[in-house]
């Protein structure tokens, strides 16, 4: 089992969610985060005082997937979240040790 962590632009959340749903991935956790990579911050102006804000709002998605569906999931996310502009985000893949469904006690791929 793998854990996909994806950082995407906030307005792409719906597209990514739909794309994942289309390939049969039903569970996603989304968190609002701030971050930056190569994308420059923006400036904000308050009574003439200009501030450069480095941290940009992003959405972090965490998705647990079975190995078999991993590539399809990565492709779905990458395609849906892509705008071609700097700041589109990144996808990280890590090994998932164990998964347990709390309600039933199922473990492993049955719990995904």
């Amino acid at each position, binding site marked *: 089992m793998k854990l996909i962590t994806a950082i995407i632009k906030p307005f792409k959340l719906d597209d990514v969610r739909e794309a994942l749903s289309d390939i049969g991935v039903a569970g996603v956790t989304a968190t609002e985060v701030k971050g930056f990579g190569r994308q420059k911050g923006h400036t*904000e*102006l*308050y*009574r*003439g*005082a200009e*501030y*450069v*804000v480095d941290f940009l709002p992003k959405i972090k998605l965490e998705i647990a997937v079975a190995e078999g569906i991993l590539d399809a999931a990565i492709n779905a996310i990458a395609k849906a979240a892509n705008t071609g502009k700097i700041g589109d985000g990144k996808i990280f893949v890590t090994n998932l040790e164990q998964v347990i469904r709390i309600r039933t006690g199922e473990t492993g791929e049955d719990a995904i």
Partner: protein
Amino acid sequence: MFSIINISLLLLLWLMPELASAEELNQANTVWVLTSTTLVLFMTLPGLSLFYAGLVRSKNVLSVLMQCFAISCLVSILWLAGGYSLIFSSGGEWQAVIGNFSKAFLTQLTTTSLTGDIPETVFFMFQMTFAIITPALIIGAFAERMKFSAMLLFSGIWLILVYVPICHWIWGGGWLADLGVMDFAGGIVIHVNAGVAALVSALIIGNRRGFPVTAMPPHNMTMVVTGAGMLWVGWFGFNAGSALTADGHAGMTLLVTHIAAAAGALTWMSIEWLRYGKPSVLGIVTGMVAGLGTITPASGYVGPLGALVIGITAGIVCFYATQYIKRTLKIDDALDVFSVHGVGGVTGSLLTGVFASAELGGMGLANGVSIVHQVSIQALAILVTIVWSAVISYLTLMALNKAIGIRVNADEEVQGLDTVLHEETGYVDL
């Protein structure tokens, strides 16, 4: 014994009708001043409170709300105890300088006592709302770093030692009034006064940690604009209520107040648009406040065109003052109290002498008084107020700093005043 005195007095009144009260209660005027009192209190609670609270960082939102609320309560009691009396009672041979304690705690006041043709209770309350908002304005300068205890003491002491004398000199029949100063609704008494005290306190307490490099943007602009709207509406009571009559004079005062607000707002917005390419919400509401503060002394004396000029001037002058204080001088008057109220008050008070003249559409200057002469009187009153407010504020803050310390320490400042001083948070997270 008592009844003989009563009968004698009645006989005296009957025989000499001139001794009887010359004024009768005017209900229309009373209604308007009652309404205005409500509007002006609304300017502080919650108008200014929300305006200021939205401008600070979220960790300090409650500290601002607490300061405004506490000042409202404290000033109310001090006003009753002697503030009102010292300003508005006749001081006998000291009248030029100060009144006396004859009206302290309003022990002689009844429901039928009059000030002019409105109940004295109403006049007391109306004036009180001005006394409340003035120290409340000052808090913007030392926001996010002042101890609550020190703020309370400073506000109370400042009210008695600064607001009371200046208000008496200009509105209570003191020496500046005798010289003919024109301050219709408090350009000098409130705005110059508070603005100068604000600058002094910013200088003494020092800049906020991280200023000017760290971004400290407003945490809630919707709160700021909400408060600003309340200030605009409330200002109708502030200025038009100062006419103390429900008539065309109040109507004109309302009109010019409104025009100046709109003109100031559009002017500031336009300057930003041209300079930075985008008009900002904070800019348009700040311009509005600048316009209102600047028209305040002139509001009962000038005409619509004068108001237009005053409003536009306010937008320009206060804009550049804000830049100068914050960016050039790097003085952390956190919420720009001096730049908007102080500078606006000075500008408006001087322009009052110009646009009050009949030739420029105003109500007319006093008989035989030229524009130059009136402006020089205005300048004198402004200067006196600046010096008095600056010196007394300075001494008070220095004394308080020595006695109890006025600023929280660095850790407390970083953590935020809400949790440190009040053990509360404005917004509850998980």
